């Protein structure tokens, strides 16, 4: 019999507070996910993961730790999983997507910090998430000021390594990021006790590329006129991808893609014909942040693509698998990751190019540019993004929100009006 309560206790979790979280998750998941009709059968895997989200995967991680493997907790799509896997380490995402964790974060952070950072810090300090208890080393990065300061606070409670992200994409920045990855590899080798060889790194690069290919296959089906999967379900696949074993993730995503491709051939859609197609762009949606997608998809529209870190930024572009020395491989990894276009870079015109390309490729009727409250980078870049979209004749709605329920009705009113305006 599964006895996760004992495991959570051993992890030093606050069981009473955690129990309160366990009460709200099934209700929210039911409202958002189980209310959908005609979902792909393959989504059963992700439903199972969520049903026991603090049980199944955490217990797998603990079993691997007993064998001597180390778990690395990451917060950003710029941290190269390949390096960790090459040293037989395990990666788990740690971004917090629940309002439940925000108050614990606000005990040490200003209220005017973005909810993702507050929730992430709160999940650790409040001892209410097993993943935050299990990770042997947290890997932070300098993608924004809020995170940089949050790492200093978290670093007082858990071992941390920080990767210093360049802010521009000049040749010297590429060299700097390559050096940063090389240094990270040394840290990973020290923590795991395993040497990274070119052969092991190449194997790891292949594993992560396969995962990217599988997720890209799922996304590709969303370009079809008959939309075979809801945006909510696609978002869930992406959110879980940060936590799952990468080989299993690829297997399950490929299995789902098989089903979706068949649905496309058969013209099966989960939305009525003529439903307006939306591209969501902006800040990431860490699990269990399903709020905006749910509101959009219960307001007469369908989300067909996400240009976010929990969307295309996570899987587009591959690492070159032909390199044979560690130096070449680290450079190839750096090149792939510097192809992610986060608002932390200046200039960041490639992101606008990406949005216009995706809007065309996914045949969208409109774009919703979402910004997590207090994320000044994406908020500011919203001006450039929305200007470019308007110039291209693509309707756009800018939205700022957080993890609370307070603005849900207001958002629904604005989104319904936007969808109506699309014709």
């Amino acid at each position, binding site marked *: 019999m599964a006895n996760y309560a004992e495991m959570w206790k051993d992890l030093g979790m606050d069981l009473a507070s955690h129990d309160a979280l366990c009460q*709200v998750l099934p209700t929210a998941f039911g409202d958002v996910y189980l209310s959908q009709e005609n979902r792909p059968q393959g989504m059963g895997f992700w439903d199972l993961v969520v049903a026991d989200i603090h049980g199944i995967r955490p217990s797998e991680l603990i079993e691997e730790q007993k064998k001597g493997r180390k778990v690395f907790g990451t917060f950003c799509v710029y941290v190269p999983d390949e390096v960790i896997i090459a040293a037989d380490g395990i990666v788990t995402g740690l971004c917090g997507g629940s309002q439940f964790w925000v108050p614990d974060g606000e005990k040490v952070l200003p209220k005017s910090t973005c909810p993702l950072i507050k929730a992430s810090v709160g999940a650790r300090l409040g001892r209410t998430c097993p993943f935050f208890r299990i990770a042997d080393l947290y890997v932070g990065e300098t993608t924004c000021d809020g995170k940089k300061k949050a790492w200093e606070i978290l670093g007082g409670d858990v071992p941390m390594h920080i990767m210093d992200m360049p802010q521009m994409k000049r040749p010297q920045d590429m060299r700097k990021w390559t050096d940063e990855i090389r240094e990270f590899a040394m840290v990973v080798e020290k923590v795991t006790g395993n040497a990274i060889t070119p052969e092991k790194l190449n194997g790891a690069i292949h594993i992560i590329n396969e995962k990217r290919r599988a997720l890209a296959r799922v996304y590709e089906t969303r370009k079809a006129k008959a939309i075979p999967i809801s945006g909510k379900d696609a978002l869930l696949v992406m959110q879980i991808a940060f936590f799952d074993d990468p080989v299993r993730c690829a297997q399950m995503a490929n299995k789902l893609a098989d089903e979706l491709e068949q649905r496309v051939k058969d013209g099966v859609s989960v939305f009525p014909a003529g439903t307006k197609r939306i591209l969501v762009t902006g800040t990431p949606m860490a699990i269990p942040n399903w709020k905006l997608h749910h509101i959009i998809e219960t307001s007469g529209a369908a989300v067909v693509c996400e240009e976010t870190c929990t969307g295309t930024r996570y899987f587009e572009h591959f690492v070159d698998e032909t390199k044979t020395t560690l130096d070449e491989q680290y450079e190839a990894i750096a090149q792939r990751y510097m192809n992610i276009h986060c608002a932390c870079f200046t200039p960041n015109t490639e992101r606008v190019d990406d949005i216009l390309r995706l809007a065309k490729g996914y045949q969208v009727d409109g774009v919703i540019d979402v910004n997590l409250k207090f994320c000044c980078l994406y908020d500011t870049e919203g001006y450039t993004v929305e200007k470019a979209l308007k110039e291209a004749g693509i309707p756009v709605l800018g939205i700022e929100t957080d993890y609370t329920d307070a603005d849900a009705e207001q958002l629904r009113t604005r989104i319904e009006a936007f969808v109506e305006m699309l014709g």
Partner: protein
Amino acid sequence: MEEDRINYYILFEDYTQGLLMQELLRGEQIKSRIAPTPHAIQGSLGCGMSLLIQPEDLAAVKRCIACKKPEYYDIVPLPCQIQPNRNQFC
């Protein structure tokens, strides 16, 4: 879904029991959906996975269980908790 509708949840002691049960039901063309076990009916059960069954499928589920004897913990009725317009998130 209507609020006065009754849903049935099959509860398990671990998720492997649940996956086997779903496989079995699928083989008999009986609809079921994996769902997080609502807190109100989970009690001290460790497993958070359940199978959500609609009332019209309950008799077929019971016949299948009687015939194939898969392992499970209980089948529990619960007024439908699913409200897509509730606007309450995590």
